[in-house]
């Protein structure tokens, strides 16, 4: 068992966690933050993506104890004063959400992308989000949402074109 402090979405948390817990387990089972999802559990799908000290992290592959003293951002930490973050607004506006399971990871990865590159081209958006799977296949809408955040117009319809 490990005892340590970390900051989650701006709040300092004092936690106790088994040594073998992943950061994902700490967030979901320890802190009740259920926004971050477990998809594959082996680092492929991106549903568990969070930021740790601003760095993109697969929380299913990170040991919880390694977050000691660090600052974690999950989807619950986005937005302020009861309002959604602009990334979330753009996802809603473009219907970039179907079942919603990949959305927290997509939104967090988008945040990281816009942090390193505020005006990504389409291929850069696709490349950056390549580690986040949308099993519904709604990639066109997701790219459209990010494109709007990058200050460019979304493509018109786009049926059947997903390359």
């Amino acid at each position, binding site marked *: 068992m*490990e005892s340590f402090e970390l900051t989650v979405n701006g709040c300092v948390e004092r936690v106790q966690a*088994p*040594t*073998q*817990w*992943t950061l994902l*387990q700490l967030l979901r089972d320890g802190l009740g933050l259920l926004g971050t999802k477990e998809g594959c*559990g*082996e*680092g*492929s799908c*991106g549903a568990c*993506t969070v930021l740790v000290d601003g*760095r*993109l*992290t*697969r929380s*299913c*592959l*990170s*040991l919880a*104890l*390694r977050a000691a003293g660090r600052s974690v951002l999950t989807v619950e930490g986005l937005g302020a004063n009861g309002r959604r973050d602009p990334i979330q607004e753009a996802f809603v506006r473009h219907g970039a959400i179907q079942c919603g399971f990949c959305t927290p990871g997509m939104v967090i*990865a988008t945040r*990281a*992308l816009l942090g390193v590159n505020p005006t990504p081209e389409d291929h850069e958006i696709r*490349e*950056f989000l*390549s*580690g*986040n799977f949308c099993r519904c296949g709604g990639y066109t809408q997701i790219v459209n949402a990010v494109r709007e955040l990058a200050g460019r117009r979304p493509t018109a319809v786009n049926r059947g074109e997903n390359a």
Partner: protein
Amino acid sequence: MILRPFKYVECGSVDEATTTLKQYGDGARIIAGGTALVPMMKHRLLRPEVLVSVIQVPGLGDIAAGPDGGLRLGALATHWEISRSPLVKRESPLLAYACGRVASPTVRSMATLGGNLCYGESASDPSPALLALRARVRVVGSGGERTLPLTEFFTGFYETGLAEDEVLTAVEVPPLAPGARWRYLKWVPRAQEDKALVGLAAVLVLDGRHCRMARLGLGGVAASPVVLRRTEQSLEGRELDERTSAEAGEVAAAEVEPMEDLQGSADYRRDMLRVWVRRVVADLATGGGER
């Protein structure tokens, strides 16, 4: 998926890590970024008693110029950092490119170069690049430090020449030969973030069409990352054209013993290797330039 219990030791120095490794022997595993080890543990392929963490060892992730040109990369440098480092892009653009082809941005930002090499996986992206660049690795154990060529580091299927108490601390990359052209071509059958079925790294030095030097590293095909020595020799001293490129493809296809798994059969790997070598050589010979 959950992890079984283990003991965790956070080391403040390489010496502490080697001492801890020696103390626990076979039951200990080093953990750096964890992107390879944690899934292996989740799938119960490994069950270490003790994880020996080196992630906080100061300076072990430094990216610096080498003493005689080239680069010295600390084992903890992540693929993300290497792929975006202006120094690496300038001194070793092949390596920067190959590191940028590893998995996805999130995995790249966690996974370390040292961890990638010590995992010993054939389908590694940096490994063929570093083999083509004839990199060396620095290794520290309880008996002291040694440097060995990467060609001697990979010893078999997920096997390396590291002794039980040894830690890979740095990768030394010699400077790229002046005027060298390079390419890393990665064949993935399904999606961008997949592992390479064939990952071919090439560095060629040409006088017009005359090949003065050829260096070829290969991942994903044989049981471990390998150098295509006979293919290199078949190219050096020759005029490169469509015929010699095709011949090099044949030499390469005969040179390796391909693996077989769910991603592809041995024959498929051999066929793709033949095509890849022909394309890369022809492409670099007809200008191609970089990448």
